[in-house]
């Protein structure tokens, strides 16, 4: 398939390795990958704060970077940015051209599970990983059944990763409580955010996994800062990095 990468500003600037791994794994899977220029922020920091006027320009710039780009899918390795982009594109541009872009937007896990599943992995990954089920991917993109929901259960993240030979997947307890990042929440409500992050970092470490693995770079960045401050024996990795290493 022909895939356009959507690399949110945080990943572009602070976690380029996640973007590189995403590009690499999609190419290994045989896709043709392009990276449209002119991408900016999805507007989430502003719309999450209620500031829709301030979000309009940046959102429309990002949308423009994808309008008219010929591709089968637009793939993004950051769940909460993807959710925000979808909502904000819709909020600020009701045209068919905008809808065409929205219809092609996929979060990486979503894409690798629903659209172009991975047939097999080449390399072993003989480590225990503790999955970070971040809120927006979980509850807004339905990447897995949230622990609040009853009835049939599914988990796309686990479904993809469990096929990697040698991998051992565990969860912190509670399994999917918010890590406390929440964008500007981390600074507006510093004390509570820090306590949530600290608790989350400790519950991941308590699983004795080597890695905390997740699909949302912002949560991982927050957890990483917490883990290093708390001197915990665990490291953060993005799902793209694990998959890329095993392909």
């Amino acid at each position, binding site marked *: 398939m022909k895939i356009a990468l959507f690399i949110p*500003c945080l*990943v*572009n*600037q*602070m*976690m*380029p*390795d996640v*973007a*590189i791994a995403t*590009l690499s794994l999609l190419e290994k899977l045989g896709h043709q990958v392009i990276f449209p220029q002119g*991408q*900016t*922020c999805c507007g989430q*920091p*502003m719309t*999450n*704060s*209620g*500031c*829709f*006027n*301030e979000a309009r*320009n*940046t959102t429309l710039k990002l949308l423009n970077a994808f309008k008219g780009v010929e591709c089968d899918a637009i793939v993004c390795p950051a769940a909460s940015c993807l959710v925000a982009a979808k909502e904000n594109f819709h909020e600020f541009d009701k045209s068919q051209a905008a809808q065409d872009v929205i219809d092609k937007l996929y979060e990486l896990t979503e894409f690798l599970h629903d659209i172009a599943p991975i047939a097999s992995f080449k390399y072993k990954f003989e480590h225990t990983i503790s999955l970070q089920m971040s*809120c*927006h991917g979980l*509850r807004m993109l339905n990447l897995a059944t*949230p*622990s*609040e*929901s*009853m009835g049939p259960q599914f988990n796309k993240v686990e479904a993809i990763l469990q096929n990697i030979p040698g991998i051992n997947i565990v969860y912190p307890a*509670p399994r*999917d*409580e*918010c890590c*406390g990042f*929440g964008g*500007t*929440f*981390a*600074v507006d*409500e*510093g*004390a*509570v*955010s*820090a*306590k*949530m*992050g600290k*608790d989350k970092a400790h519950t991941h470490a308590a699983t004795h996994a080597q890695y905390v693995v997740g699909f949302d770079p912002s949560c991982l*960045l*927050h957890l*990483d*800062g*917490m883990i*290093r*401050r708390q001197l915990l024996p665990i490291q953060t990795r993005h799902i793209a990095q694990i998959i890329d290493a095993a392909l």
Partner: protein
Amino acid sequence: MNQSNQYQSTSHADNAAIFCRDENRVDWHSKALWNLREKRDKAAASVPEWEQLRQLGSEIKLHTLSHLGDYLCQFEQKCIENGIQVHWAKDASEHNEIALKILSVHAVKKLVKSKSMLTEECHLNPFLEKHGIEVIDTDLGERIIQLNNQPPSHIVVPAIHMKKEEVGELFHQKLNTPKGESDPTRLTRAARKHLHDQFLSADAAMTGVNIAIADLGAVVVCTNEGNADMGVNLPKLQIHSMGIDKIVPDAQSAMVLLRILARNAIGQPITTYSSFYRGGKVDGEMHIIIVDNGRTDIMQDKILAESLKCIRCGGCLNTCPVYRRSGGFSYNYTIPGPIGIAVGAQHDESNTIPWACTLCGSCSYVCPTKVPLDKIIAHHRRLKAEQGKLPFGKKYYMPAVGKLMSSPTLLNCAMGSARLALKVLPHSLITPFSGAWGQYRELPVSPKSSFDTWYKQHKASNKEAK
């Protein structure tokens, strides 16, 4: 001990920071509430049709809210046929005046009340006490905080913020229990004896209403301790206060809500006492006060209106990671937690409570009537922004952020220097400048370059290789 009084500031973040100073207490509070969430999960999982029940609960409430006038009229008419006296109150003060008038006609000196968030919302207790009527809250948790001179910190377990040792000390002072007693059973026995005396000497009883049934002209009151029934069945006068949102069409709808209410609240199949009242006692009088108090205003906004589907189970508080770590008194509103933000943000003069939330969405998935709490909270932020009431200096810095984020060049520049600063400055030097982030976390390890730059170089070298 009286935590509600230690909060001088009105900002949720400041109050929460004070609560967070005692980390052991935060852990204990968080765990106590998470236990309820776990019990709820077990109870919900034991009902195979749980998710269908939630859907049904949501639809019943939505249907009734969209035909509210009709159902309220039918309810009033049926009540009158049943010999109940119906009163309408447009706001809290009208509600209190009506209650006072009924009580005065009967020369009531002592009123026993069973738990009602509506009377809390109307601040009925201080109002009646000012007029010389003694009000005794009879729900155990409510009585504890009443003796402690505090408002509830949770809508279902109002004294959840107090440890059993603290209750023991309080009872020692107020009810003469032995000093140092902290055994819950013995403390409960002492409270029961104390409350018995109150029930026997009361002149009137008042309760809240969990559900009002239009075609029966009846109200349903749920308690685990039977205190509403003790109250209602002893004196001749009974009064029930309800919000207009409590109405459902028929008994079948009420059954759906009864199946989800207690399960979602504390993991119990049903509340121990779910009493239907549809008329006064022989020689007695039954009154119902139907209260608006801002609810029709809320209904004017399509998104906010869905908050009226709430059946006050407290499930969203128990799951909320912010509520559990900031305590019920940090919200500056009678109702704390996600639903408190949803229905209380308009009254919040500090304009901070809509931001006391990470928008994780757990509450919306826990809610048995599918109140879209995270959407409502996000909407409140937008409303505050439109009214120019943004907290945390957002009004001033957001336009700059907007400008920065919309320009790839500016963004590259800013982030480039941020990366550089992270690399060359010792952390001890930049940590104080990075605000709350650096106070609690290590700053990110700086990457060599942005993906943008890497991609351009990578592509160039790829081309050369070809």
